[in-house]
């Protein structure tokens, strides 16, 4: 029981502190770098920069039709586990309670068994993603320890969560504690690895969106 108390208490507090501090540190550290202005005249009829940015953020949610075929597996599989993770995290009743306790917001939950099913699919997709990263020559060349650690930090909460829900493998308080600790590990690692793309993706796409809407290109 001590482990569960530690997990629900100190561990989460430290994890949130590191998560928030790290994320803002990295975000501020990037956004406060010098902003190189573009003095060239914009393309005639080009939308305002911010609109160009927002459009790019939304448009780049799905690959352009020319690339759908070539990136089919990566796109579909990634969306399976991204949407899966979202449904599990925001759909399971205990998770909603965790969020309510943190923020005061709450909403109706999905049936727990359904969420369990989604969790299993998410786990499968994540394993699929790792398999591809280990097999595909391009991904093997690109990947470094950070990528595999980010994968591990994402998959552990899913595994421990499924085990905790099915009360398998140990006493429940241990399973729940391990699950919470794995989430704490995810939060601590988040700002320092590529999980940060969950925050940076909008700024990154936006910057390119601005650069090219200035030139009259729908990037």
């Amino acid at each position, binding site marked *: 029981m001590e482990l569960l108390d530690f997990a629900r208490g100190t561990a989460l507090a430290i994890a949130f502190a590191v998560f928030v501090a790290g994320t803002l540190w990295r975000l501020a550290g990037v956004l406060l770098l010098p902003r190189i202005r573009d003095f060239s005249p914009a393309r005639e009829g080009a939308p305002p920069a911010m609109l160009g940015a927002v459009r790019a953020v939304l448009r780049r949610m799905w*690959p352009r039709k020319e690339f759908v075929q070539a990136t089919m597996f990566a796109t579909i599989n990634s969306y399976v586990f991204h949407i899966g993770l979202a449904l599990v995290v925001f759909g399971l009743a205990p998770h909603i309670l965790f969020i309510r306790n943190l923020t005061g917001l709450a909403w109706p939950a999905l049936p727990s068994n359904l969420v369990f099913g989604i969790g299993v699919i998410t786990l499968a997709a994540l394993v699929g993603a790792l398999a591809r990263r280990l097999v595909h020559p391009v*991904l093997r060349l690109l*990947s470094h320890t950070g990528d595999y650690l980010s994968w591990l930090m994402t998959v552990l909460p899913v595994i421990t969560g499924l085990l905790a829900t099915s009360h398998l493998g140990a006493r429940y308080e241990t399973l729940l504690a391990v699950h919470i600790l794995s989430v704490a590990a995810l939060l601590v690692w988040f700002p320092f690895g590529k999980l940060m793309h969950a925050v940076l993706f909008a700024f990154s796409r936006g910057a390119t969106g601005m650069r090219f809407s200035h030139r009259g290109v729908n990037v």
Partner: protein
Amino acid sequence: MSAVSTARPAHPAYDQQGEQSDETRVDAAMRSFVREFGVTAALHMESCVRCGMCAEACHFYVATGEAKHTPIHKLEPFRRAYLREAGPFAPLVRGLGIVKKLRIDELQKWQELIYDSCTMCGRCTMVCPMGIDIAELVKEARHGMFKAGLVPDRLALMDRAAQKWGSPATPGEDLPDILAEAAKQYGVDIPCDLPQADILVTAAPAELGEHTKALASAAKILKRLGVKWTMHQGGFDASNIGFNNGDLALQERLTRAIIDTALKIGAKTVLLPECGHAYGAARWEAAKWYGKALPVRIVHMTEFLAELIESKRIQVKNVGETVTFHDPCQIVRRGGLQAAPRTVLAALGMDLIEMKDHGVTGYCCGGGGGVVSNVRASPLRHKVFEIKRQQIEATAAKHFVTSCGQCQITFEQGAKFAHWERKTESLLELVADNLVD
């Protein structure tokens, strides 16, 4: 294949200039790569999730299947340089040695990836789910490579020539003679060095060599307009080799030459020739050197022709036959002029059959960004050219037109190598040859 300039153990081909020590080269590369690191470049360096999708868009990977051509991989050493020099955790990463320092052998090995197998065409930028503008980062990586004196010899040679003459192949002094000869050959007046004019016309290096017909075509159209224009020894080569090589000093000097000349002669417009990187260097980056909006309008030949036709200031005959168009990357994908050439071709009454991949996601000709000039990269370029050749063949169009001199050279060389009977026509010359009298 160019011989390796200095004695090196059996290493993949790379060239080296200057007598800097390895450490100073690495330091120069790292610092100058990071020197003008803005928010956008930093955001892009921070956002890669190593998903590998950019490879699927890159013609070098698609043609060869080799993983090393993955666009984001071309930035690997520079990613480390960024993390150590400008990243938010730079002090930590440097202090704890989490990210290893750049090594000279890595930079040498990467020269081939940065120069030979990347045309900075930006097709990878169109697929990256994180919206990373990889082409721009490669250009900034070239700044570092240039400072480190690690540029392919052929490009370094052209760089030195441009520093001396203002153009890689033609000294400024020869401009009047070249123009005079072209004028005589094509029977059209090409003014040079007028003290005052409304439009300063600039050229691409090839147009000052064998392709002088382009100058004549431009002259014919401008004569029809009856505007006051001139070319000028002070600033005549717009293709800006510095932009391709990563030589920022030269890029600035060449750009200033053109803009200052325009201002000197009171020109309101600078007309860029049919050239891709000229558009990148002048249209989007000229103002950077002045730190404010420029009082002169910079327009590319393609959009100029479209404007003339739409405003009915020139009329063209109805050619009628089928045509397919190659979208030069810097003009369409990264320049935003997809509609202009199509307006012109429509006005010419030509039946446009688009290639499988066209417009902003069209494949690159494979020779841009200095690759066609970099002779050492020819074998790779020829292999990559096959993609474009097959797409053009598939349209079975009678005409094949594009609006960039570098692309034209690449297509001509590619056709020769592949024994392919396909003439590449210039949009400018097509218009000039079909002006209604």
